[in-house]
């Protein structure tokens, strides 16, 4: 099942790249660079979905004290981080051409960077606490509160004056801001990246469970 999903997501992504490179026309004002958007926004949304799940799984861990939720929270956070980094890097490359600068301390960019840093901190916290119960409890609390940074990033271009482009998706604007073919392509790439993220989470979750097995084997080895 996992391998089937992996192959499906790889084929789906290949199909999307073929269409966005060879079939979709250049954007009138931006030229070819606008195609970065097909990874920039889906990367952000996939990362944000992972971080939302971090909060949900962390809350479930605190409620049930079931290790499964702690492992899942760690897995989705780690998988979400590369997508958040993808969003930041592609945004910087786009900004270099469109704005003429790699980076500016604009509210949208700054909150996105802060959010990625907080989730990187979450993963560092997990490595820093040797006791499993303490680690799970502390990281669950951070996992819940860290989601505020994702909301702040999402709403920053409504709440603050920013040079980041305004929202274009019909779901936020009511339509008329993006060509339907481009929006459809965006949806396809989001789905493909979400499928890939699901596979990565499953692999990472399995590793987290194995790490727990190693911890118990270590205790057993030391008990003799």
């Amino acid at each position, binding site marked *: 099942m996992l391998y089937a999903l992996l192959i499906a997501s790889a084929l789906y992504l290949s199909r999307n*790249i073929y269409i966005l490179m060879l079939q979709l026309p250049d954007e009138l004002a*931006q*030229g*070819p*660079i606008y*195609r*970065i958007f097909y*990874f*920039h926004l889906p*990367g952000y949304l996939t990362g944000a979905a992972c971080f939302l799940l971090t909060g949900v799984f962390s809350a479930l861990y605190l409620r049930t004290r079931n290790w499964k939720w702690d492992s899942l929270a760690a897995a989705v956070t780690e*998988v979400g981080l*590369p997508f958040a*980094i*993808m969003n930041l*890097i*592609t945004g910087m*490359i*786009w900004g*270099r*051409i469109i704005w003429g600068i790699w980076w500016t301390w604009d509210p949208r960019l700054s909150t996105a960077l802060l959010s990625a840093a907080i989730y990187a901190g979450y993963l560092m916290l997990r490595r820093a606490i040797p006791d499993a119960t303490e680690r799970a409890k502390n990281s669950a609390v951070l996992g819940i509160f860290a989601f505020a940074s994702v909301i702040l990033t999402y709403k920053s271009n409504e709440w603050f004056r920013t040079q980041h482009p305004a929202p274009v998706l019909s779901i936020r604007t009511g339509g008329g801001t993006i060509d339907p073919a481009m929006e459809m392509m965006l949806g396809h790439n989001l789905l493909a990246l979400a499928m*890939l993220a699901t596979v*990565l989470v499953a*692999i*990472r979750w399995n*590793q987290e469970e*194995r*790490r727990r*097995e*190693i911890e118990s*084997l*270590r205790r*057993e*080895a030391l008990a*003799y």
Partner: protein
Amino acid sequence: MDQRNFEYMCYGLIAAWGVLMIYVATLIGRERRLKSEVETLKKLIEEKSRHEA
């Protein structure tokens, strides 16, 4: 300008894939390390229990 625009689009797509590929490589590396660690610990426990018996 157009050439530079196209070049940077390529950099963007390479960066997007690069980040994911680096992460997948990290996952593969960790998978190998975890497997060997489990095997080593199991062997150690087996040896210790045999020694005690």
